[in-house]
């Protein structure tokens, strides 16, 4: 029961983190106190890591460049990929870091102000790490969809106003 409540809450706030607790309680059909407790519990145990906002930066005057960088590394004895991953993710310009199966090991998602900034990060910081064997940088040209949201999705309700 409690797990089911948590699951439904997570699905709702994943789409809309601004929804208030009172409204959440109405939507899931639970007491407000139970919702408050469940949310607190999930914040404490790290199920809910942070509340973010999805922004379409193209609509602003702020310039941003995002790159996906494939990185091949030599895993280290006793530590696997974790220590090299830590050295990479501690850079604040690294937005995301994933360990992957397949042709390369780590996927770095990097955000910089300019192309030059991103490329100098790759050549100065990333490629020079001793365990890094190679890097391949892909610049993002256009963002169509992010976090389940289609950018520039202007949906109009095309239904008739009244139908039986």
């Amino acid at each position: 029961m409690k797990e089911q409540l948590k699951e439904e809450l997570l699905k709702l706030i994943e789409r809309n983190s601004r929804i208030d607790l009172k409204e959440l309680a109405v939507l899931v059909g639970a007491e407000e106190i139970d919702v408050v407790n469940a949310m607190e519990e999930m914040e404490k145990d790290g199920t809910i890591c942070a509340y973010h906002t999805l922004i379409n930066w193209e609509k602003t005057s702020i310039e941003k460049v995002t790159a996906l960088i494939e990185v091949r590394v030599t895993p280290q004895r006793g530590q696997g990929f974790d220590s090299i991953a830590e050295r990479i993710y501690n850079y604040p310009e690294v937005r995301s870091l994933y360990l992957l199966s397949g042709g390369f090991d780590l996927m770095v998602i990097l955000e910089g102000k300019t192309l030059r900034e991103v490329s100098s990060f790759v050549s100065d910081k990333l490629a020079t790490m001793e365990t890094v064997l190679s890097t391949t940088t892909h610049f993002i040209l256009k963002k169509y969809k992010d976090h389940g949201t289609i950018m520039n999705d202007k949906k109009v309700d095309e239904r008739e106003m009244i139908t039986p």
Partner: protein
Amino acid sequence: MRNPLSDTIVQIKPSGIRKFFDIVSEMKDAISLGVGEPDFDTPWHVREEGIYSLEKGKTFYTSNSGLKELRQEICNYLKRSQDITYDPLHEVLITVGGSEAIDIGLRAMINPGDEVLIPQPSYVSYEPCALLTGAKPVIINLKAENEFRLTAKEVEDAITDKTKILILPFPNNPTGAIMEKEDLEAIADVVIKHDIYVMSDEIYAELTYKGKHVSIASLPGMKERTILINGFSKAYAMTGWRLGYACGPEAIIKQMTKIHQFAIMCAPTTSQYAAVEALKNGDADVDMMRESYNQRRRFLVNAFKEMGLECFEPFGAFYIFPCIKEFGMTSDEFATRFLEEEKVAVVPGTAFGDCGEGFLRISYAYSLEKLKLAIGKLEHFITKLREEKAAKE
């Protein structure tokens, strides 16, 4: 000049919804809560399957009964959801929406003078379709105090020796009422006792919020006297694809197929291919939509409670049916003033039968944001009405 028209059709009243539709469509900036179809798009994998079938050149007629694969999938679905076993070769017909199934089902079964029991408030087409067959519609007025469920006594009281079919429209449009297993068992007893048939319109079967839907056809002795009607419009958000089906005894389906063959030929081929995909891989989509409707439903039930607007809690479809009798005006007056003064369109309960007087149908096939906006306006409006009333007294 000679009168070109049929007396029968001229005598049928136009849909009560039509009048309201004309007023609303004049207003450009009105918010509507008047829609009887999902706000979701058809799931992409279903649409994609339709597109793929077109690319593959599947653009011909299917057999009159519909694609065999689709009939098989429908039987699988009814087996897993209701535990009813139908023979896909002889007991299933694919139709152009559930609406066609209602029409040809009645035409296949009615002799002029037969009586058809129609519980109201309910969907607008049962009565006209019955009239077109020469049947005598007998209206059963459902009661708010029963949460608009049909009772065995109401059926018993309406039955005569001419009664042939009982229409069973649950989960119900416009009230949102459902019939649970015990309710249906009581009805089934009466139906069997009087040897009549049931046309069970279960188009909203997947949209219930208090346990799973139960079909009357799943009860002992009922499969052989029930035409089960369902379709893809509501569960899979496929209204524009126009696809439904009827399942029932071979003898009836055979005659329905005959009418369908002459009047329609076959249901749209593209839609049929898409529907196969919907039944095979669409359960998660239905779950997602159901959960979303349920959240909106709870939001409205709570909002009405806070406003002090009388309303029973609906457990089916995507409608809520509040009572507006406290304001001392008709449903029509209320809906018209609400539209004029607040620019929100709802449907007067009377569009679904005379006993809908004093009620409104509010659809929650809208995003929460839109519902919040409209409910804010409703609250504003009824506060105003209550003040007007207090000033008069």
